[in-house]
């Protein structure tokens, strides 16, 4: 199979242009996940400057704006994003070092804080960092010595940076209702501001929130968090970023059960999810909908991507967003081929 360019040509315009304060919604289902598309957004924002043969200076000339990304992920670990981005040729750890990228971990300790939290995270992080180049030496037990000294050096040298990229900011859900959301919001905004501190005029901050809908599902009505509160939470974060990309699930049971009134009463988790997802689509400038083929699985098609204008599309002439439906195929090497129906 030929290797594919990191950005599928048909998607380049959609991926690279995010107007100010716009919201892009990516919807996924069980059999058609959105991670590959999120990675493409990451690449579109960070890709060129991380490639080794392009110096940062010329990149800035070419493109005018430098982009930074803050990725908040609730369902997937830093390890996953790092490994998958690597397959695209994007070294997130290095970008994090260069203050172009920050990861906010909504998975590891969201609902349970480990009792032995003191000191351990930094240690873990240093191990990730320092053993990265040591891939060729499997089986070496990371000693207590070298990593921690490196950490100490780092911390000493770079006073600005408090954390290692591997142990990005971890979100915690503590407390009840909106107050718990506020704490997380503060944490994320702190991360955004930390990135912004090194931002020049005209630089753009892209915020990617991966599946905040889980938060809504897992906290439940009993905790006083509903679709409106979640939407407000997103708004609060949006205000701090140039543009926002949001992923959420659009599986039939989560969307359609709420509207079919009558026979069976829909559960709160369904009603709230539908209200949140559809409400977000009303705000979004564009909605990228991923789904599987209706006709059943095929060997050379992974799924269908429908790009639609959301309710927040302004309809102005300069905001030209073409609606279309495309097929995509994820190759074993991680490359993605995007093509129209009937093409191959």
């Amino acid at each position, binding site marked *: 199979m030929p290797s594919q360019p990191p950005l599928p040509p048909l998607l380049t315009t959609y991926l690279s242009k995010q107007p*100010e*304060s716009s*919201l892009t919604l990516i*919807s*996924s*289902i069980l059999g*058609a996940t959105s991670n590959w598309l999120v990675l493409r957004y990451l690449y579109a924002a960070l890709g060129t400057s991380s490639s080794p043969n392009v110096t940062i200076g010329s990149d800035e000339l070419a493109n005018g704006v430098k982009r930074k990304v803050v990725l908040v992920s609730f369902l997937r670990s830093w390890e996953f994003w790092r490994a998958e981005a690597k397959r695209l040729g994007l070294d997130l750890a290095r970008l994090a070092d260069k203050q172009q990228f920050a990861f906010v971990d909504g998975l590891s300790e969201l609902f349970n804080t480990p009792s032995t939290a003191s000191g351990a995270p930094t240690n873990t992080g240093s191990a990730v960092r320092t053993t990265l180049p040591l891939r060729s030496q499997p089986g070496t037990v990371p000693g207590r010595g070298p990593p921690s000294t490196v950490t100490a050096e780092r911390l000493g040298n770079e006073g600005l940076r408090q954390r290692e990229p591997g142990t990005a900011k971890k979100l915690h859900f503590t407390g009840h*209702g*909106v107050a718990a959301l506020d704490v997380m919001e503060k944490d994320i905004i702190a991360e955004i501001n930390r990135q912004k501190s090194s931002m020049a005029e005209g630089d753009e901050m892209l915020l990617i929130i991966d599946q905040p809908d889980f938060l809504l599902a897992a906290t439940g*009505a009993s905790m*006083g*968090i*509903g*679709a*409106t*509160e979640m*939407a*407000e939470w997103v*708004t*609060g974060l*949006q*205000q701090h970023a140039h543009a926002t990309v949001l992923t959420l699930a*659009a*599986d*039939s049971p989560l*969307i*359609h059960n*709420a*509207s079919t009134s009558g026979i069976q*009463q*829909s559960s709160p988790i369904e*009603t*709230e999810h*539908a*209200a949140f*997802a*559809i*409400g977000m*689509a*009303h*705000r979004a400038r564009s*909605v990228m*909908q*991923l*789904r*599987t083929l*209706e006709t059943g699985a095929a060997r050379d098609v992974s799924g269908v991507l*429908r790009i*639609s*204008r*959301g*309710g*927040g*599309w*302004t*309809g102005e*002439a300069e905001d030209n967003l073409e*609606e*279309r*439906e495309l097929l995509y195929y994820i190759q074993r090497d991680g490359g993605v081929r995007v093509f129209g129906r009937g093409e191959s």
Partner: protein
Amino acid sequence: MAPVNLSHRRTHNLLLISKLLSLRDTASPLTLLQDSLEQPATPLIKEYIRRAKLSKVHVTFIAFETLKKPDGVDAFVSTRRKSPAEIVEEVAAVYQPASATGPPRRRLIIIDAINPLLSSRRLDPAFHLPSFLGSFIAPSGPSTGKAEASLVVTYHQDVSALPQQNHYSPTPLSVLTYLATSIITLHSFSHILAQKAARDRSLAAPVFGLEEEQDGVLLGRLDKLAGTGAAEGIVLELEHRRKSGRGVLEWYLLPPSSRYSPQHVKEVVTLLDDNVLYNPPMEPDTNPDEDEPKSTFELGLTDRQRRDREGVVLPYFDAQHGDGPGEGGRILYDMGEEDDFDEEEDEI
């Protein structure tokens, strides 16, 4: 429909929509816009703002889901983490009545989506929707002067409402539709065309977006629907309650804003029935004598042929006599000279 009737309807109803959209004579203090993902109300709200600018109306935008202040809005009120009372207060505060000399400036208050408010968990159970809306239209404060305010509220039809706490009170949507003096339901023109095309063929009307009930589909609107390339615009289904109590129901078409300049004063909205795509003009009625299709074959009958045809006794006429089984139903045919009948081969 008689042409006279249509032109009468056209004059009246176009005047009505013009009055409503331009907020003249406070024809409608509370307008409810019911939109969906398939046709969001954003373009219509832009049109409201554009017209308000033209007639120098003060525009207040209450944002439940809009992040950025839209162009042409005088005051932008964000509602994040605010209680309804605080919103009302802030909306009243942003409007400085014009100097005492001039006539009070009219004002337009837009709520971009009422759903988040209605489904908010932090909402006080004592929240009363009618008085909340009423407080915008008829502010009680002395400072506001005698501004005439029109309220335009958007309701997303596809966002499901939460189950009500009080099972016996009417749903918020019914309250809104009952209170509103005008209700505008928005449809996508291309969908209306597709549905009409299906109806004309007695087919089931197609459904779009969420109604497709397909896994992973939120929006179905693809503006490049086959054969409707030019079908841009929004269909407005207006239900207006006149002061007299009479109701008016009409369908309009609002063309996309790129078709006219922002300073355009003349009415741009047309009746849906006047649209050539929706209602293709009938071929003008031609001479009834020429209603036969033209063909290289002569399909007509001469008088003699017609007489002959009428003379043929069809089998069942005979069968009705019931001469017993096997009888009747014979074809009675008188051989003519043009029949090439062979006694030995042919039989009747």
